């Protein structure tokens, strides 16, 4: 039996083989590498996303802690930033004294992160109770104020003359040297 293949059939077969080769070449040289690239990119994205989730959780945790700390210590944080106003201070605390005068505020020293300003005071009190009340009240003042030695008491007729120094602490002076001016 003689098997006859026409010329057209040969052309079709040749074209089919060529197309098949093109498909295989395309698949192996382009499609499979891009598939690998895709898989790697997807894995990398998942990995990074997981890392970001962990860091986001840590961020939320630290943020909550910071907010709670800020809320609990609002007075202290504000007090360290508040500019000392001698007039306001005198008005607030003169009720504890018969007379109460403050010297000008002068930069004194550095205490760690804080700049210390010194102010000298002289006052007249009727009894030591006025001074005790002042010491209680100064802990609630707008500034962080420490009463310092030397403290001098002297009898003056029926009153007690007292003089002492106060240290006012202001934070953040490293970066705010020019910004925070003491009135």
């Amino acid at each position: 039996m003689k098997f006859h293949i026409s010329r057209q059939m040969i052309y079709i077969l040749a074209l089919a083989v060529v197309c098949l080769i093109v498909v295989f070449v395309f698949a192996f040289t382009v499609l499979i590498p891009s598939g690998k690239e895709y898989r790697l990119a997807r894995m990398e994205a998942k990995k990074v996303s997981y890392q970001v989730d962990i860091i986001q959780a840590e961020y939320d945790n630290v943020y909550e802690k910071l907010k709670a700390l800020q809320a609990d210590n609002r007075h202290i944080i504000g007090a360290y930033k508040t500019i000392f106003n001698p007039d306001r201070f005198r008005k607030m605390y003169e009720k504890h004294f018969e007379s109460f005068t403050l010297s000008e505020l002068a930069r004194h020293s550095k205490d760690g992160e804080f700049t210390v300003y010194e102010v000298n005071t002289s006052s007249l009190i009727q009894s030591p109770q006025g001074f005790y009340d002042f010491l209680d009240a100064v802990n609630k003042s707008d500034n962080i104020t420490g009463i310092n030695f030397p403290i001098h008491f002297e009898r003056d007729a029926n009153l007690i003359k007292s003089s002492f120094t106060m240290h006012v602490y202001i934070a953040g002076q490293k970066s705010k040297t020019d910004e925070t001016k003491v009135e």
Partner: protein
Amino acid sequence: MRYSFIKPREKRLISAEFQLLFFFFSITVGMLFASYSYLKIKTIMYESNVETLLAKEETLRQNIVDMHGKIAFIEIEKQHSEGIYTANTVLKESIHNLFDLVPEKITLSQALLKEDELVLYGVTPSKEVYEYLLLAPLRSIFHRSYTSYYAMPNGWYSFVSKNYLDRELAVQ
């Protein structure tokens, strides 16, 4: 004049078999390109996503460091202010105790309080009253006490009492 009984087949440039072959290969190639395009687009999207996530991660890390700094500073402020408030309270108690220490018979005219030193000026009816009622408690508080008396015309004594705390002994 007709030479055949059948109608002659129309001659085409591309035969039906060729067309069929082209059709299937076109679909195959189209699908391959579609897959390739899909993979490429998704890869670019993932890469872009990774870049965004990495930038976010960096920002979050920086914010965490900043917040830790703020927390540390608030802790320092809290500790520092508590120290000052405590010192003010201790000072109040010390002055309170000092004035409570002075008996009614003795009148103070001046008191100078320093960190490690207390100087008292006053008037006492007799040296014994001063020694029993004021010097004894002062000695129990201070490491060194020195007193000078000055006789007054009315028989009383004015005194100057200097009392010192030795820091080294106080530490022990």
